[in-house]
């Protein structure tokens, strides 16, 4: 088995007296799509934000490729290998879609920016709106723009927090295809979702989080269909301390 692109070891995060994550350990291999599921407040967003280098953990280690992130000593290398979609678009309303993408391409110090921007815009279906101000785009189109931003630098690891938010069915299908293409290219994908039907259809593995702990790590073969997964999900969450 090839070395994992993303390795998480005993990750802890505390907000005041409350533990958001406790001893979270897992790996994501190249070409693997992992769904992160769990009830509200389970720690999904906190986990993804730590992996995305936005939040500092209290303990534990994260490796992206061979990069040791937790000490922040090589965070730049990790950041270059990560594509992160969060709850916010991270876009500037007063810039056009093209200007936003060009800005991020410059931050990633990418070459051939114009071609890359055209390519990712076409990939997410916003090439005809590239010169529109971002504030004039609908929530769904802004989400597509956000996904285009993530694809710009072709990251080895995709971290997607509720990526289906605001997307219509066609756009959600497109996102599924983007994830499958990334999988074929050997990238590692970790995404959180409450849309279990859609998320389970595309993932290879599902990690269940509750109260900051991994309560189940289930490979695709472990459930027969959505109803079967829901049965396991309900059982695990009810039984997990």
């Amino acid at each position, binding site marked *: 088995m090839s070395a994992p692109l993303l390795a998480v070891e005993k990750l802890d995060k505390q907000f005041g007296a409350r533990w958001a994550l406790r001893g979270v350990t897992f790996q994501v291999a190249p070409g693997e799509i992992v769904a992160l599921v769990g009830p509200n407040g389970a720690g999904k967003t906190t986990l993804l*934000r730590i992996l*995305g*280098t*936005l*939040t*500092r953990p209290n303990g534990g280690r994260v490796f992206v490729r061979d990069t040791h992130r937790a000490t922040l000593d090589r965070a*730049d*290398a990790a*950041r*270059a290998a*990560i594509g*992160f979609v*969060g*709850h*916010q*678009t*991270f*876009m*500037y*309303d*007063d*810039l056009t879609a093209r*200007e936003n993408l060009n*800005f*991020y391409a*410059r*931050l*990633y*110090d990418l070459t051939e920016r114009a071609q890359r921007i055209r390519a990712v815009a076409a990939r997410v279906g916003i090439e005809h709106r590239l010169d529109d*101000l971002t504030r004039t785009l609908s929530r769904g189109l802004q989400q597509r723009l956000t996904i285009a*931003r993530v694809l710009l630098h072709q990251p080895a690891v995709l971290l997607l927090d509720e990526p289906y938010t605001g997307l219509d069915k066609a756009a959600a299908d497109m996102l599924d295809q983007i994830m499958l293409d990334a999988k074929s290219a050997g990238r590692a994908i970790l995404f959180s979702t409450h849309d279990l039907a859609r998320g389970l259809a595309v993932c290879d593995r599902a990690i269940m989080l509750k109260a900051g702990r991994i309560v189940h790590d289930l490979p695709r073969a472990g459930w027969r269909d959505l109803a079967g997964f829901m049965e396991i999900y309900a059982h695990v969450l009810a039984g997990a301390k």
Partner: protein
Amino acid sequence: MGFGIWLPSSKGIPLKFLRQTFAIVQKDLAAELRTKENLSAMVVFALIVLVIFNFAFELQGVDITVVGAGVLWVAFTFSGILGLGRSFAAERDKGSLEGVLLSPVDRGAVFLGKAISNFIFIAVMQAATLPLFAILNNVALPWFPLVPYVLLGTFGFAAMGTLLSAIAASTKMREVMLPILLFPVSIPLLMAAVKLTGGALQARAFAEVALWFNLLILYDVLFLVVAFWVFEYVVEE
């Protein structure tokens, strides 16, 4: 070691550092040129301050070359605070600062880019304010050395203001926090800037204000270095 002290985490890639810095400056300028929200508010506010002071002093027959430096810097700093306050508030509100922090960009480049943008916005406001000051008070401004003195004062003010704007933006009372944090810290710098500006208005020889000039340079360097180093810890959660 030398260069590494100034660019602590750029890993010997100053060109990349500079490219990223100017990407941030260009982004800020492009957004501002499109809306002109920040600049127009700053300029209008500064002009209002000048007009109010003009009426106040005209009634008392004050020599404007004596008090003019204070008037100008009240207008510059209060108006500058408006712009600095929006500098990171807008980035925090829309989460775009996180987008920047996600990318492999040196936090020093982010600071420098924002500081340069803020410096430019304040300088533009000053460029509109100084001629009006001259017209209202019927004085011929000694553009040299007045403009270099004003820009030197603005440099340190923008550097420290950028850092403190980032701190204030992460608090609930950011509109109040920025002036509370920035004005006390900036007092030595503003004193030097006012004295130098006054010296220029009164056509005093450089030797008479050299001490203030040295103090201003010292604070410019101090503010820039401290803000550059501390910024990373301010913006990272």
